[in-house]
Each structure stands twice: as structure tokens, then as C-alpha cells.
């Protein structure tokens, strides 16, 4: 029996190229489903990774009480001093956080770009930040460094050019990376320069702390809460960014599965169509085999094998297109939490591609099963007459 199955299946697969035209439907159809699904899921994965990779467990963010974003936060000089000198704080960076309208490259329309004023301590505690082109800004000067994502997404954010943020001109002297995190969507400038350029007065938006251990973060929070002089909130940096991620990644993921599911139904019809046609074109061959004494099962298996082979081919094609077309592709969107543009890269992971192939196989199985059964049930005499 097994021998029969193998022989018929091989015979059939060898003839596959002669049915290339109609077979391409199943390949392209399933390829389309897998490609679109993997691409959308890669977007969700990339978006989530941007926030998940941001932050370190031994870093904390201090905001004004009640604020859950740096944009709506503001802290006075005195409070900054009190927190910075608390026990367990190794480094404290006062930071200024604002947004400016800069046109996006893709649409040409203005979008909110984050501008962050940082101090030397800010660089020191963020060891993931690396200048990849140019140099860092000179303290006291109207210079800035741009995150890689900001540079890709916004018009005029190029090394060496100048950009007008609010009323002041800035020279872009460097491009930095920060491990693919959300920081890469920002422009960084010298804190005191930002303070005067953006008319900020004495305080800061927020305070970044490097502490001596991850456990210290919660303990600091309690201490701040207990201090009557302070109306502040302390968050672990990781937790903070995770919250910023919000629902968007889940939404995109759900959207991806929804679109893929609808497309999959369409592709299943296409696959069925192709496989029915394949069975019709092989009617005489199948009937002859049956007349010669081959069983029904080998026929079923051979049709299923054809469907699955085509499906795997289509799935691989789709995954490849998604990988080569989208992996690392940078886009940006408005983040709810920070009210500004977050740039992120599509991440076509092997996991996603495997998911795509599983879908392809399922579709192939659906597309092959009914025609296979029909092929097996063909009345031999009728089939031999080619009807």
C-alpha cells in the first residue's frame, strides 16, 4: 500500500509543471495570505519591540504626581534636588521633554516630533545610546543629535542640516541609535540650551534616575510618596515604556489576523478551485490507475500531497516576500501615550514566518481534501469516458 502511495504521489508531483498555469493560482493565493499576515504581524512585533527594548530595570522616571507621560509633567527645581540626593540614586538626569511640528517624509504634513533636553548624566546612565554618525552635541550650543528613527521618518532631519524647532534653529551634528528603542524617535539637545530655547524657566519635565538595584525603584517610590514636600510619581523605566506601548501592538496584531482570516477564506476557495481543476484534468489518469487496481487511498494522498506541496511553496514565497520586502522597514505612528511620533521597524521573525507556513499548510489541506475525496469516489467507467 505504502509503495502504491509513494509511486502515485511521485508520478503526480512529476506532472505538476505541466499544470503550471492553474497551479500558480494556489501558490500566489496562499502566498498572498501568508505575505500579508506576516507583514502585518511583523509590524505589531516591531512596534512592541520598540517599547519592550526601551528602558532598563535599574532606571527610574520621576514625573509630577498624576502625570502618566513626560509631556504633561513638570517638576520644580527644589523637588528635583530632593529626589536626586536620595539614598541609592547613583545618577540623576534632569530632562526636558517637548514636541515640535516637523513634516514627515512620507506625507509632507507636520507631525509631532519629540525633543528631549538631556544632561551628561543622561548619556552616562543610558549606555545603549551610541552615536552612529557624526558626533554628539557640544554643551551650550544650538546643536542636536537625532535618533535613527526620527531621521528616517522626518523630512530635513539629516546629518549636517539645520532644522527649526519652534523659534530656534538647530544644527544636526549626529545620529544615534538606542538599541532599537523608543528613544530613537527623538531629537536630543543640551538641557540648559533647551531650557532657554523653549522658555522653560527653572524646572524640568522629568527626572531620570540610575539606582543601585532594580529593587530600589519601588522603595524610592514609597519614600517619595511619604515625603509631604513632594507631589511626584516614580516609575520603573521598563514599566513606563511598557505602559506606553498601550493597545496599539495588540490592535495591529488583531487586525493582521482579521485580514489574514478573511483573505484565507478567499484563498481557500481559490485553492479548492485549483485542486478541483487538477482532479478534473487527471480524471482519465486517475480512473486508469483505479482500473489497473490501485486503491482509493493512494489517489487521495497524491491529490493532498499536490495541494500541500503547492501550499508550502506559496507559504514560503509569501514569507520570503514579507522578509525581503519588509524586514527592517521603518514606519512611524502617533503614540497615544506620548502624543508624538514613534518610529519602529518591521520585525519579520522566524517565529512569524513559521506561523505563516502553518497557515499555508492548513489552507493547502482544506484546498486538497474535498477534491481528493472526489477523485477517490470517481466512478471508474464514467471517468474512463472522460466525462
Amino acid at each position, binding site marked *: 500500500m505504502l509503495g502504491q502511495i509513494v509511486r502515485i504521489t511521485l508520478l503526480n508531483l512529476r506532472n505538476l509543471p505541466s499544470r503550471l*498555469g*492553474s497551479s*500558480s*493560482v494556489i501558490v*500566489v*493565493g496562499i502566498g*498572498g495570505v501568508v*505575505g*500579508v499576515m506576516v507583514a*502585518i504581524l511583523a509590524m505589531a512585533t516591531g512596534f512592541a519591540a520598540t517599547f519592550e527594548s526601551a528602558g532598563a530595570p535599574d532606571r527610574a522616571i520621576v514625573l*509630577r*504626581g*498624576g*502625570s*502618566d*507621560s513626560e*509631556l*504633561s509633567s513638570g517638576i520644580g527645581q527644589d523637588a528635583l534636588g530632593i529626589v536626586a540626593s536620595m539614598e541609592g540614586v547613583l545618577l540623576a538626569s534632569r530632562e526636558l521633554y*517637548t*514636541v*515640535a*511640528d516637523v513634516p*514627515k517624509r*512620507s*506625507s509632507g*504634513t*507636520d*507631525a*509631532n516630533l519629540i525633543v528631549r533636553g538631556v544632561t551628561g548624566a543622561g548619556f552616562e546612565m543610558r549606555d545603549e545610546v551610541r552615536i552612529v554618525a557624526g558626533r554628539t552635541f557640544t554643551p551650550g550650543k544650538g546643536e542636536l543629535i537625532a535618533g535613527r528613527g526620527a531621521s528616517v521618518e522626518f523630512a530635513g532631519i539629516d546629518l549636517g542640516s539645520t532644522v527649526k*524647532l*519652534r*523659534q530656534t534653529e538647530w544644527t544636526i551634528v549626529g545620529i544615534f541609535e538606542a538599541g532599537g528603542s523608543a528613544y530613537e524617535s527623538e531629537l536630543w539637545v543640551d538641557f540648559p540650551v533647551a531650557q532657554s530655547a523653549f522658555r522653560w524657566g527653572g524646572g524640568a519635565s522629568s527626572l531620570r534616575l540610575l539606582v543601585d538595584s532594580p529593587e530600589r525603584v519601588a522603595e524610592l517610590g514609597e519614600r517619595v510618596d511619604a515625603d509631604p514636600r513632594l*507631589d511626584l510619581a516614580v516609575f520603573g523605566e521598563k514599566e513606563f515604556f511598557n505602559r506606553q506601548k498601550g*493597545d496599539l501592538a495588540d*490592535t495591529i496584531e*488583531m*487586525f493582521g489576523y*482579521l*485580514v489574514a482570516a*478573511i*483573505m484565507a*477564506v*478567499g*484563498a481557500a*476557495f*481559490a485553492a*479548492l*478551485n*485549483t485542486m*478541483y*481543476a487538477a482532479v478534473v484534468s487527471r480524471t482519465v489518469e486517475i480512473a486508469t490507475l483505479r482500473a489497473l487496481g490501485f486503491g482509493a487511498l493512494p489517489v487521495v494522498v497524491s491529490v493532498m500531497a499536490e495541494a500541500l506541496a503547492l501550499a508550502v511553496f506559496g507559504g514560503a514565497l509569501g514569507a520570503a516576500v514579507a522578509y525581503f520586502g519588509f524586514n527592517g522597514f521603518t*514606519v*512611524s*505612528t*502617533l503614540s497615544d501615550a506620548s*502624543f508624538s*511620533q514613534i518610529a519602529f521597524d518591521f520585525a519579520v521573525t522566524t517565529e512569524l514566518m513559521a506561523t505563516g507556513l502553518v497557515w499555508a499548510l492548513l489552507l493547502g489541506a482544506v484546498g486538497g481534501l474535498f477534491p481528493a475525496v472526489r477523485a477517490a469516489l470517481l466512478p471508474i467507467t464514467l471517468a474512463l469516458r472522460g466525462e
Partner: protein
Amino acid sequence: MSPVGFVWANLHRRPVRTYLTLCSVLIAFSLFVLLRTLAVVFVGGNDLASGSRLVVSGKYSIIDSLPISQQRAIAQVDGVDAVTHQTWFGGNYQDPRNFFPKYPVEPRAHFDMYPESVIAPEVLEAFARTRTGAVAPAELAAKFGWEAGDKIPIEADIWPMRDGNRRWEFDLVGTYTFKDEDGAQPVFLFNHDYFAEATGIRGIVGWYMVRIAEPQRAGEIAKAIDALFEHSMNPTKTATEDEYSRAFAQQVGDLGLMANSILSAVFFTILLLTAVVMHRAFRERVPELAVLKTLGFSDGRVALLVLGESLLLCLFGGLLGICSAFVLTPVVALFLEFLRLDFELHWPTVGSGLGIALALGLVVGVPPAVAARRLTIAEALRRN
């Protein structure tokens, strides 16, 4: 039997094939409608955004406040009918997930600015007179079970009260509705006077809404307003409400592009599938087509019959797909509810769907139709 009936009968030669193809086309078009709708929702912005209203905001960013002194100056610009202001309050009701916008406004001027918002005169009167008063859209009130007389607590993030207290309490005096619920933005409104007094920050607003009498002069009036403040501490940027919401939607990202890329993939597949099916159907029928020609059907008429099959298949599939999108839309809208967007079908989408169905039918049908036209009877019959 009519010619269309004949074409229909031909499509039933292999019913399984026809119906499977029909289903694929159907799916493609329902996806088309859903994705286009989504793109329209994002890119098209607010339907109710009007060309006769302008938004005046801070030049450098929407987050910048503007001094209230500008209101009088704007009102005096030639062509300006009315001016009122709004401010982004932020804040959370119970949980950050219960998001809805909250603006401190000038009650009477606000409802004068938005004739599409309907409020009972006595409610508006109570709203204007109650210092801590607030009104909510009826839908929002129903969602949270609020009734007139309830105290609504809001935890502030941007605007703590002067004494540092972050818990605001508003007295709901009633609700308002929209003439047309579609695309209406449900905003929780309260008195700007109370806002200024409680925060101790007087003379600051978020942005201005300006009504103009002649929408065609919008560009000119916007320039005139911006010119007023160009060299002040608070330069402005003025745009029609329409442009404004479009620009904001652009910030979300190019969803239109994404929807179009997906649709290209889908339609390419459908095109291929239908083309293969129609080609197969044609090849099977060569002798029959020749018979039609012997009966006196002209070359053109035979070509039309063949073309008609593709057209009928694609248009019918497209129509079914669009109809099923009507059914699917509320379901998808449910999925996307948290996007707080109004997800509904637009007639232009339906129209372009049918247009594409027609184009698909032509692209798929023309090659076999041309082949059918060229078919010479004597040769085709010999193949029999």
C-alpha cells in the same frame, strides 16, 4: 431566454468552479470595502469637520497654550462671525482606559459654534449658570450610567487645582446630542470659568474655534488671523477644521498606503484566479463558440458573450462582496471599538468597488473574448 440568461447558463457549465470563483471574488470585494472604509476613517478624518470653521492653534505645536487676549483680536478680523475657545484637559475618569476628551469651554458660545450639537435651552442655561456644571453627550452618559445631578470625578494629569488637589468634581447638569451621530466627537464639556478659577491659571486657552460666514474665503481669513500674532510671543497657525483633522489623521500613519498594498496583493491573486478560470472555460468551449458562429452569431457577438461571462461573474461577485461587507462592518467596528473611530460604509467606497469589479471583469474577460472573436469556424469545428 435573454442574452444575459444565456451567459448565466454558460456560467453553470461547471457550477462548482463558478461558485468557488464567485466566492473568491466576493471575499476580495468585502475585504476591499472593509479596508477602504478603515482607510477613509483614518485618512478622511472627521466627516462633520466643516470648511466654515477654522482652528487657531499654537504655531509650533498643538500642545502650546494661547493667551485669551487673542480672542478679541480674532473676532475683529474681517469675515469672522464668531470665536470661542477650547482647551485640552486630559485627565482620567476612574481608569485611563475610559478615555473621552474633556474640554473647558464657554457654554453658550460653544453650542452657538456647533449647531450640529443639540442641547435643550434649559440645560444650556443651567450649564452656563452652574460654576462646576458639565454636560456630556447622551451616548457617553448612557455608557457610564450618568444622570443629571450626578457628581463626575476626574483625576487630572495636566491640570491639578491650585491647591495641588488633582481630583476634580463636576456636576452633570444634563446631556446633549448630535443631529447626526456619525462622526460626531463625544466631548465632555465644562465651564472654562471654573477651570481658570480652580487652576489659578487665568487667561490661557488651548485653541480657538472660529466661524466664518464665507467658507470660500477661509484661506484669506486664516492668513489674516496668523498675521495678527506673527511677531507676538504666541504666533498661531490657522487651518480649516477639515484640514486640521486630516493633518491629525496623517500623524497616525499612512494607513491608506497599507490598505492599498494589502488590496493589491488580494486583487492580483483574484485577477490571476479568475483569468485562469475564464481561460479554462474558454478552451473547453471552442467548438460550441464555433457552433454559435455557424448559427449566425457575429464575431463581435460571440466575443461579447465570452466577455459577458467574466463581467457577470466579477460584477455579481463584487456586488455580493460589497453587500456582505455591509453585514461584516458592524462586526469589525466592534473589534475596533477601542480605536474610538466611527467605522461605517461610504458610498464612494461602494462606487469604486463596483468600478473595480467592472475593470476586473474586463481585464479577465478581454483576452478570451478576443480569442473567441478570432476563432474561425471551419478550424474550430475540425478540433471537435
